[in-house]
């Protein structure tokens, strides 16, 4: 399996507190990987180790195929290049990022771009696009000290993309944003992932993760409880997905037609509502509606009892707390 991030037995202690506890995190390339966990689970700590801000107490870290080590083991002079180059293909947005207040938004991107070794011409091409992408157009020449929290988050996202990174790590990108901002950020994250990038995004907003991620890792107290594709994690606890269809008038013809669909397990009819149990979590609404219409039914309403990541999350955390009370 081609992995963008691989940790083995990663452990980080703050004094007597173990923030990350023998964590094995695997992030496949070209996935949008949600990193979920309650407050204090160790998400930020893990991410800080991945980007070389903290040194783990134990365990190994590989990022984009490169073994990462603290400056300590990198040799005395060696580290001048070594650690820096491993960050060339990584874009990282810290949790509530702080940027120098005395710089203008565009200056910040220009200087950071130069730190990636980008030429002036490359920077001049790239920066206006990024400013446009994160919706800061018109404000790029204001001092960052005058930016609102949401604007700082946006410039934070823009600076992750400067060098067209292979791996983008976002630590709670929508923290502190208004609902419109949150939607916009979600769109940007999807956009980021389009060009074959790998994205690791930490969050405790389950609906956000559900909407953008392909894979999920849920951690609690520094240990991964589950790590898999979103689909499988969502299906972990509840049975198969359900589709509720309200039709103007039911008939046996309709019920039988729906039953014949390969993705359907069973159909229960209550009044004018069909409760259809599906074999998969894939979205089969179009198929079902077509079948019903062709059988002469008129659909009034349809609702899919979609993923239950929230249930999974709560149950997993609950179980974990119960078994190993703090």
């Amino acid at each position: 399996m081609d992995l963008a991030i691989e940790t083995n037995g990663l452990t980080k202690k703050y004094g007597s507190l173990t923030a990350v506890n023998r964590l094995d995190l695997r992030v496949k390339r070209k996935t949008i990987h949600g990193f979920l966990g309650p407050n204090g689970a160790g998400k930020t700590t893990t991410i800080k180790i991945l980007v070389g801000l903290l040194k783990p107490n134990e365990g190994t870290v590989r990022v984009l195929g490169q073994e990462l080590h603290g400056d300590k083991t990198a040799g005395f002079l060696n580290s001048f290049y070594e650690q820096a180059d491993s960050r060339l293909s990584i874009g990282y947005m810290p949790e509530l990022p702080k940027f120098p207040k005395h710089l203008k938004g565009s200056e910040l991107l220009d200087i950071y771009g130069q730190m990636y070794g980008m030429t002036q011409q490359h920077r001049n091409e790239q920066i206006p696009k990024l400013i446009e992408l994160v919706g800061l157009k018109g404000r790029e020449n204001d001092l960052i000290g005058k930016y609102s929290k949401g604007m700082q988050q946006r410039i934070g996202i823009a600076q992750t993309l400067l060098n067209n990174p292979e791996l983008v790590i976002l630590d709670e990108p929508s923290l502190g944003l208004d609902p419109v901002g949150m939607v916009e950020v979600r769109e940007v994250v999807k956009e980021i992932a389009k060009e074959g990038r790998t994205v690791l995004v930490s969050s405790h907003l389950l609906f956000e993760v559900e909407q953008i991620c392909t894979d999920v890792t849920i951690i609690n107290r520094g240990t991964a409880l589950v790590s898999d594709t979103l689909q499988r994690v969502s299906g972990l606890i509840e049975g198969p997905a359900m589709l509720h269809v309200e039709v103007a008038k039911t008939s046996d013809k309709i019920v039988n037609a729906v039953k014949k669909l390969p993705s359907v397990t069973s159909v229960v009819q209550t009044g004018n509502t069909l409760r259809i149990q599906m074999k998969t979590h894939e979205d089969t609404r179009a198929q079902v509606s077509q079948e019903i219409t062709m059988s002469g039914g008129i659909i009034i309403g349809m609702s899919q009892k979609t993923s239950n990541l929230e249930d999974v999350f709560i149950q997993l955390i609950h179980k974990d707390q119960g078994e190993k009370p703090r």
Partner: protein
Amino acid sequence: MNTRTSTRRRRPSWFIRFWAVVRYEMLWNIRKKKFLGLVIVAFALATLIWVLPIVSSNATDQPIEADPDFAVNFAIPGIGLFLFALITAMNSFSSEFESGTVVPLLTKPVSRTMVFLGKLLAALIIILFTYTILFVYGIIGGTLVYGSQNNLHLVPIGLFGNILSTFLWVAIIIAAGTLSKSTIISALVAFGLFFGLLFAVQIISVLAGPSPILNYVPGSGASGKMMTPQGQIDIGAGTDNIGVNMINYVLYPSANVDFNMTRIELQGNQPLITQVFAYSEPISLITSRSVVTTIVYTIVFLFIAWIAFKWAQILE
């Protein structure tokens, strides 16, 4: 397992990346209002030096005596060196930690050593720039007030010496800043050290007499008098006076400096204060010792700062 994919990039020039750090730091320094403030204060002081004689000569109706050596003896006093160092270096590491800007900075493809050297180079550029203007200003002012000046070609040596002296304090302040990650603590440590050493050296000089040992701590060191064909020149033998001493060495390579001890005797009921010769040292020894001492201190403190920064965990 093939871990290095085809998308692996060419390593871009480290010089571009290093220069970005210098640029980052320069902007930080230049837009710091108090730095501009200090430059203004420095100019005000330098102006006073050559305006005061005009004022007093007008008041007393005495013509100003020509002094062809004004420019060559122009130097920033110890407290000035210290303040310049403090303003330039105080925030450069600690406020990165305090404001949290260290997090995005250190996750860019610049190593911590690059960041460290870049900030140092920026401090050097800023100090060089300010001192150059100050010295040029001093020369112009001196020429206007004291008439034409001798040995102007030696002024760059003085400039170099003043920068070296300043960098000792820069190194101490940066070491305090990277170790404490706090601007206030590092400023307090630096102030405490500067004034502590200043007073300690003065007190020891008076009580126990001047001693070459005093020159091995940062500061003004022992003070003595150098005899030259042109007359007596006051000499401070410590690390703050490298600039003037280097020039004096060039001008009077074989001169000696006498260090006197203050003796207080009771004559009847009246205390009698006399200066007694303590020891003598050649200016060559004084100059080379202060240069070596300064360089050693600077390297040691910069090394401490570098290690502290390189191994710092970023908890912010």
